[in-house]
């Protein structure tokens, strides 16, 4: 129920029985006609459902208690607050400092309600609900209390709504419409503070407890603090230290007013001009649920969207602020490199003819196709089908290493699930830095560490974590020690109830990958990590395309294929090592940004980015999700799979699909799990990954898979904001 509705309910006269009788004669709805005449006045109780369709989690079904919200009985688990009880009863309590995903601050006092037998109004966010409590949310007492609080809050609030960035999506604005007084009694001078420099992402203005609370709780970086007391209070980073956290952008969402707003978005657009498209993020393997807000043909901002299983309601800074990369360095015309080494724009017709002709000139085994880290399943399927029809089987996805294991699904996805990590009590991170590889997974681990005091240990290069973490070693030999039971960590692991091992996908590129994985497997076996009721073996992937590529079987025939290649089809692949490629090889680059891959290319085919197409992606936990187009593509660019489909026809090996639906039914024959959208498909069975590996582990220590959190793919590398962030990161 909206606040406006709540307010109007206060004014609206209650329907009486007599009035119903009068109305009856003109009502034509049959169900009303057949109803019994309302002789006994029933309390006006519309059917109530929890707010926003919320599900209620009962940790212990026996502990349910019953409270009454506005006379309506609700069953809630013991320990919930009054505010939560009201939410279950479908009553939206106005609030500022309370945020459903942060711990309770209890300092704004906006959520006052009346509780029977309580002498004063009660701050519902901090008050635990007791059995039989009678809560009244729309009595004159509650309303007057809120009005008083609102007056105090507006006392020092600047009167800049017309130019404030939060205007139109401000809780304070909305709630002052419902509860604010129509006149002010404040005659003193308003307090003002100077803009602070919080780095390239956020700017700030005034105090509000929740923001501070949020940053400390969520980011785990104690950068912001409250200076002064009373009306002298203001938010400041200690000595204006810049906010350097990979989740700092979320304070923009947490802040109920315009105190902290997005700097790249500042003064660019108004929220009522924006069109929201609910889609997913592809800058890492988490697949955070996002909403792309666009104005006309332009992406204006990216905000998170609720998904309890993946990103809750947060997103990383890379996801949030990479969007300006979508507007820079774009490829918009098909281009062919002439004899002078310069690119010349040509028509699609000509460029496809050239590519098809050359593809027929080389031997099938000299053809190679590489899918990039942002590729969707549809285009990877088309690429594989096209190359197979041309006779080549050398097609893979970058980041999966020279000899990926695509046979056992449990060997490359996060078997516990991102949500399931909250049940673990011991984490062993092998060659991975979740903080930069998948910030949302790291947030889950951090939540678990803070919530249930889970222990975390890691093997890999020394890194900074935002939670307590034990460093066990740097390389494979530590892993062997743990596997053989010689390490002190073994006892922690075997005593754990739900141990979780997270292996980084950066190890895929190592030559001793199989040996490392068999060592990890030995640890899993000793620590009883994989049981029928708990699968704690996890691989944390790096890129959005990886899981789907392995599901579709994009595996190279030989690991040396690139040395003998004569025709290379790069589908957005920018991080492939092309040094070993023969000089006379013909390189086709299909992608949306002029990035690393373009400089070696002979032909450039412009494709659409993730914000402009429909595509299927599978995230690191094996959950299939789809992007939806939010904005039109630039210039002459086309969807990836459509380009390959057109090329196949020109080359005379026509692929048998020409709609998204048709290509998805083709995918169904290969990997049916890619069609069950928004469902997490767990790996069906667990078997030994490999017969005992013959290769020995090398002593080279693990490397960091990602050097720069802010620049991992062609979109983020084109982004100016990301460049500023990484410059700050380097300066530190």
């Amino acid at each position: 129920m909206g606040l406006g509705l709540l307010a109007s309910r206060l004014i609206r006269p209650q329907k009486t029985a007599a009035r119903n009788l009068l109305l009856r004669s003109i009502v034509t709805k049959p169900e009303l006609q057949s109803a019994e005449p309302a002789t006994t006045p029933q309390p006006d109780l519309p059917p109530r459902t929890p707010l926003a369709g919320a599900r209620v989690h009962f940790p212990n079904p026996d502990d349910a208690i019953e409270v009454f919200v506005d006379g309506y009985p609700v069953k809630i688990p013991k320990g919930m607050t009054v505010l939560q009880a009201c939410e279950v009863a479908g009553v939206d309590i106005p609030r500022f400092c309370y945020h459903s995903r942060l711990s309770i601050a209890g300092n704004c006092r906006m959520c006052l309600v009346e509780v029977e037998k309580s002498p004063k109004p009660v701050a519902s966010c901090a008050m635990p609900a007791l059995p039989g409590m009678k809560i009244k949310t729309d009595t004159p007492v509650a309303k007057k209390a809120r009005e008083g609080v609102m007056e105090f809050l507006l006392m020092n609030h600047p009167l800049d709504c017309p130019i404030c960035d939060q205007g139109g999506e401000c809780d304070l604005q909305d709630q002052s419409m419902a509860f604010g007084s129509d006149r002010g009694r404040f005659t003193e001078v308003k307090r003002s503070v100077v803009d602070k420099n919080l780095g390239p992402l956020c700017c700030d203005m005034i105090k509000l407890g929740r923001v501070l609370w949020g940053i400390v709780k969520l980011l785990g970086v104690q950068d912001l603090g409250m200076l002064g007391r009373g009306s002298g209070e203001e938010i400041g980073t200690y000595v204006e230290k810049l906010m350097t956290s990979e989740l700092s952008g979320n304070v923009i969402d947490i802040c109920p007013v315009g105190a902290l707003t997005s700097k790249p978005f500042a003064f660019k657009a108004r929220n009522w001009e924006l069109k929201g498209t609910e889609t997913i993020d592809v800058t890492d393997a988490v697949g955070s649920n996002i909403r792309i807000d666009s104005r006309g043909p332009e992406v204006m901002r990216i905000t998170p969207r609720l998904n309890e299983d993946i990103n809750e309601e947060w997103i990383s800074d890379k996801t949030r602020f990479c969007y300006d990369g979508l507007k820079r360095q774009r490829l918009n015309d098909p281009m062919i490199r002439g004899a002078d080494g310069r690119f010349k724009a040509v028509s699609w017709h000509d460029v496809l003819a050239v590519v098809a002709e050359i593809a027929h000139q080389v031997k099938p085994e000299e053809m190679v196709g590489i899918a990039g880290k942002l590729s969707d399943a549809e285009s990877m399927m088309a690429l594989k089908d096209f190359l197979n029809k041309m006779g080549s089987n050398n097609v893979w996805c970058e980041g999966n290493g020279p000899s990926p294991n695509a046979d056992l699904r449990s060997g490359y996805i996060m078997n516990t699930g991102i949500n399931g990590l909250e049940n673990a009590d011991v984490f062993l991170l092998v060659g991975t830095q979740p903080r930069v590889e998948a910030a949302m997974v790291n947030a889950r681990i951090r939540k678990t560490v803070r919530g249930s005091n889970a222990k975390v240990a890691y093997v890999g290069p020394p890194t900074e974590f935002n939670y307590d973490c034990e460093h066990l070693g740097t390389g494979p030999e530590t892993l062997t020690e743990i596997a053989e039971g010689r390490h002190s960590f073994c006892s922690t692991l075997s005593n754990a109830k739900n141990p979780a091992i997270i292996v980084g996908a950066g190890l895929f590129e190592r030559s001793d990958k199989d040996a490392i994985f068999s060592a990890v497997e030995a640890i899993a076996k000793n620590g009883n990590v994989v049981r029928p009721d708990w699968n704690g073996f996890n691989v944390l992937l790096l890129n959005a395309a990886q899981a789907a590529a392995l599901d579709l079987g994009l595996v190279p025939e030989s690991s040396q294929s690139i040395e003998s290649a004569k025709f290379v089809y790069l589908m957005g692949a920018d991080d492939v090592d092309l040094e070993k490629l023969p000089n006379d090889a013909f390189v086709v680059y299909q992608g949306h940004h002029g990035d690393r891959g373009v400089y070696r290319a002979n032909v450039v085919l412009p494709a659409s980015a993730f914000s402009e197409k429909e595509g299927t992606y599978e995230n690191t936990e094996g959950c299939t999700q789809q992007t939806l187009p939010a904005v039109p593509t630039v210039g002459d660019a086309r969807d990836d799979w459509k380009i390959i489909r057109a090329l196949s026809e020109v080359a005379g090996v026509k692929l048998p699909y020409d709609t998204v639906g048709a290509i998805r039914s083709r995918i169904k024959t290969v990997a049916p799990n890619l069609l069950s959208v928004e469902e997490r498909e767990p790996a069906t069975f667990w078997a030994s990954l490999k017969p005992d590996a013959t290769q020995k582990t090398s002593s080279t220590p693990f490397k960091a898979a990602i050097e720069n959190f802010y620049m991992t793919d062609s979109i983020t590398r084109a982004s100016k904001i990301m460049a500023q962030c990484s410059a700050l990161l380097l300066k530190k």
Partner: protein
Amino acid sequence: MSITWNLLGAWKSIREKGFGAFLRELKDEGYLNCLADGNLLQTKIHNIGAKLIGVDKFGNKYYQNLETIHGRHRWVEYAEKSRYNASQVPPEWHGWLHFITDHTGDELLMLKPKRYSIEHKENLSGEGEEFIYHSKGHSLNPGQKDWTRYQSWQPTKTK
């Protein structure tokens, strides 16, 4: 009576400046245009006996004669004698001329904001190609704007 007074004034100025200067003044004041332009002639005749209230910076003269019919008692004689139009009246005099206010343009000019006001410009529609406004994206606008909201990759580096 006023006609004799006027003729006397003319005789006085011929005597003071000489006949050639008098003719030049006649021409500058637009008396020659009156021969072809009845409207101007009518204004000139109207001016006789009226009170000159003020002259704006463009040289337009504002007259008032309270003896004439009510509603036709304020008028302007444009400085430009051949191609005059109503947009040549600056905003400060507009109000006085159209009976919106009794304050003359000179009085209102003292209230004119210094910081953000811009100079009055007459409407030049139909006065030539160079005076026509072209939208920002129009190819005839010298600072033609490219509305493309993305920046394309420029192939600069060679192999």
